[in-house]
C-alpha cells in the first residue's frame, strides 16, 4: 500500500469510504509532512491541525455509522487564503485583513466539506492575488518545494506548493490572469481555470470580478475533474453563476482524443514571441505530437489579438481592483489606523495596510478609470476583449481545442523579477487570454526543462468546453515524459541544491 501522501484523492476517498483507512490516519500522515517541511516551503499562512482532526474524526464517525461521507471522504484539502472560512482568519496575505474572521464560508468551502473533504489550512498568496511569484505576501514568500531557491509561481503559489510538496493531495486557488495555471506549471501539478461562472465566486475575496474564477490543483487530471464536479454548478448567491449543474468530467476521461482537431496558438508559442524559452517550446511540440499520435489532428493556427491580451489585462484588472479594494477603509473589518478625522483614518489605514504591488494596481486602475482617460484605457481594453472573443470564436470553428505553453519559462529564482513589475507581468502572457474571454483552460505537467524543473502545457477550450478539455488533458498526462521526481509526495527525493 502506498503512503497517503503519494496516492491520489480518488484513492484516498475510496479507502476512507470503504473503511480501509481512517480519515484521521490519512490526515495525521499529511500533518507530519507539513510539520517536517513547511518551515522551509511556507505554503501555509495557517495550518488548522485541531479543526482538521475534528473534521476527520467526524468523517470516520459517519463511516462507522454506515453512512457515506461523500466523494471526497477524508481527503485533506488546502485553501488559498482569499477564500472565506467561517470563524477562521482569511487574510489575502495582506496586513489590512489581519485578524479578520469571516462570518460565513465560501460556497466552494461548503461544498468541499459537504463532500467529506478535510480543510488542513489556508495557503499563502501574492497579496490580494496580485502577482506571479507569491513574493508579494505580507507574511513572506513561498518557496518552490522542488527547489527552494526558486519561486512557486503565483498568485496561488501556496496552494501549488502544498500539492507539489505532498502537504495535501488537493488545493483550491483563484485565477484572474493565470494565478492557478502558472504556479501549477512551475510546481509540476495540474491546475484548472474553469469557464467564467462555472464555479461560484461567493466568498472569494474579489480582485477583478469579471476575470476571477476558483479552480483546483491536484497531482492527477482525474482528481481535478472530481473537485470540479463537487464545487461546480449553479449558486444563487453568485449572480454571474451559470444556470447549469456541473458537468460530468470523470466519465469522459478515458474517451481519448481520436478525431479531435487541436490548434497550436502561433502567437503564444512560435519563435516570434519573445521570452518563450526553447525547452518550453520543445515540450509543447512534443505534447502536440503525443495528441496527434493518440488520433487528434494538430495544426498551427493564429489567434491574432492574443498579442494585445497583456495590455488589456493590465488595464481591466487594476481598474476592477481599484474599485473592489475601495472597501478596505478601516470601518467595517480588518485593520484600522486611528486618525483625527475619517478621511485621514482611511488614508492612514490603507497606506499602512496595503503592500506596494497592491498600491501600484489601485493607482493604475484609478488612473485608467479617471476623467479623461476612461475611453483611452478602460473603454479600449473592454473592446479588445470583444476582439479576442471573436478571434477565439473563429479559431473554434476550425478546432475543438487550442494549445499553448502555460508559462514562458520554468520557475525563476526568488528575487529575480521583483524590482521590475513589467517583467513580472510578462509571466502571464499565455494565460491571460482565457480570462479575458471567460473561457476554461488548464495546465498539465509535461516533462521538465533544461534545469530539471517542471514545464506545463496549457489546453484551452471554448466556454463550457471542460469535458473536451479534460479528454486532452488525460491523454497528455498519460503520454508525458517523466516529471520532477519529487512531485507526488516524496519528501526525501532529490529536489535541487537548496533542499539537499
Amino acid at each position, binding site marked *: 500500500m502506498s503512503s497517503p501522501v503519494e496516492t491520489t484523492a480518488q484513492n484516498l476517498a475510496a479507502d476512507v469510504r470503504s473503511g480501509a483507512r481512517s480519515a484521521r490516519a490519512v490526515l495525521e500522515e499529511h500533518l507530519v509532512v507539513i510539520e517536517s517541511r513547511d518551515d522551509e516551503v511556507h505554503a501555509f499562512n495557517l495550518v488548522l491541525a485541531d479543526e482538521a482532526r475534528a473534521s476527520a474524526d467526524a468523517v470516520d464517525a459517519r463511516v462507522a455509522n454506515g453512512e457515506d461521507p461523500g466523494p471526497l471522504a477524508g481527503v485533506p484539502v488546502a485553501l488559498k487564503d482569499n477564500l472565506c472560512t467561517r470563524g477562521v482568519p482569511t487574510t489575502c496575505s495582506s496586513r489590512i485583513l489581519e485578524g*479578520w*474572521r469571516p*462570518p460565513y464560508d465560501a460556497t466552494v468551502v461548503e461544498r468541499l466539506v459537504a463532500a467529506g473533504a478535510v480543510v488542513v489550512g489556508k495557503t499563502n498568496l501574492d497579496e490580494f492575488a496580485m502577482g506571479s511569484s507569491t513574493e508579494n505576501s505580507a507574511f513572506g514568500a513561498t518557496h518552490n518545494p522542488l527547489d527552494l531557491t526558486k519561486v512557486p509561481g503565483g498568485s496561488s503559489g501556496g496552494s501549488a506548493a502544498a500539492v507539489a510538496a505532498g502537504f495535501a493531495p488537493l488545493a483550491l486557488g483563484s485565477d484572474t490572469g493565470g494565478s492557478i495555471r502558472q504556479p501549477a506549471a512551475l510546481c509540476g501539478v495540474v491546475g484548472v481555470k474553469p*469557464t*467564467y461562472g462555472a464555479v461560484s465566486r461567493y466568498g472569494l475575496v474579489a480582485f477583478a470580478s*469579471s476575470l476571477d474564477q476558483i479552480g483546483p490543483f491536484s497531482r492527477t487530471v482525474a482528481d481535478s475533474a472530481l473537485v470540479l464536479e463537487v464545487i461546480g454548478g449553479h449558486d444563487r448567491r453568485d449572480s*454571474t453563476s*451559470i444556470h447549469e449543474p456541473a458537468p460530468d468530467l470523470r466519465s469522459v476521461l478515458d474517451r481519448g482524443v481520436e478525431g479531435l482537431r487541436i490548434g497550436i496558438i502561433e502567437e503564444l508559442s512560435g519563435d516570434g514571441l519573445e521570452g518563450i524559452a526553447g525547452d518550453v517550446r520543445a515540450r509543447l511540440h512534443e505534447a502536440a505530437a503525443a495528441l496527434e499520435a493518440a488520433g487528434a489532428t494538430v495544426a498551427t493556427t493564429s489567434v491574432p489579438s492574443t498579442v*494585445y491580451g*497583456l*495590455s*488589456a489585462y493590465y*488595464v481591466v484588472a487594476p481598474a476592477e481592483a*481599484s474599485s473592489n479594494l475601495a472597501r478596505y*477603509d478601516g*470601518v*467595517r*473589518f*480588518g*485593520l*484600522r489606523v*486611528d*486618525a*483625527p*478625522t*475619517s*478621511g*485621514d*483614518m482611511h*488614508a492612514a489605514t*490603507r*497606506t499602512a495596510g*496595503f503592500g506596494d504591488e497592491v*498600491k*501600484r494596481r*489601485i*493607482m*493604475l486602475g*484609478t*488612473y485608467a478609470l*479617471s476623467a479623461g*482617460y476612461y475611453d*483611452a*484605457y478602460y473603454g*479600449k*481594453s*473592454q*473592446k*479588445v*476583449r*470583444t*476582439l479576442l*472573443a471573436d478571434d477565439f470564436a473563429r479559431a473554434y470553428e476550425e478546432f475543438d481545442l487550442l494549445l499553448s505553453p502555460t508559462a514562458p519559462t520554468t520557475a525563476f529564482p526568488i528575487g529575480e523579477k521583483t524590482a521590475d*513589475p*513589467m517583467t513580472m*507581468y510578462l509571466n502571464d502572457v499565455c494565460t491571460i487570454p482565457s480570462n*479575458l*474571454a*471567460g473561457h476554461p483552460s488548464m495546465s498539465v505537467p509535461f516533462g521538465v526543462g533544461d534545469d530539471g524543473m517542471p514545464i506545463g502545457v496549457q489546453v484551452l477550450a471554448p*466556454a463550457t468546453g471542460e469535458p473536451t478539455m479534460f479528454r486532452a488533458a488525460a491523454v497528455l498526462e498519460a503520454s508525458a515524459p517523466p516529471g520532477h521526481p519529487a512531485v507526488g509526495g516524496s519528501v526525501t527525493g532529490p529536489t535541487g541544491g537548496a533542499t539537499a
Partner: protein
Amino acid sequence: MTERISRSDVAHVANLAHLSLTDDELEAFTGQLADVLDHAADLEALDLDDVEPMIHPLPLRNVLRPDVVGATSDRSEVLACAPSVEDEQFRVPPVLGEAP
C-alpha cells in the same frame, strides 16, 4: 499618443485612492506606472470604433430572484468584525472636522 503619466498625476491618483506616498515612493511609482501604460499604448494603434465593449464574458441576462424572506447574516457577528462599534453601529472618527 497619450502623454506619459507625470508625478503630479500619480500624486492626484494616490489622493483619489486614499493612499499617502513619500517622495521616494512617488518617484518609483511614477516610473513603474509609466512602464505599464507604455505597454498598453499598443492598444492605441487598434481601430476599435466599430467594436462593442465586452461587458460580461458570457451572454447572461439579469434576473430577479423571488422576494421571499430568508436567513441573513447575524448582526452581532458582522459587527464583531469591525474595529470599533457603538450602539450596534460602526463607529468612525468625525467626518467633518476634528473631534472636540
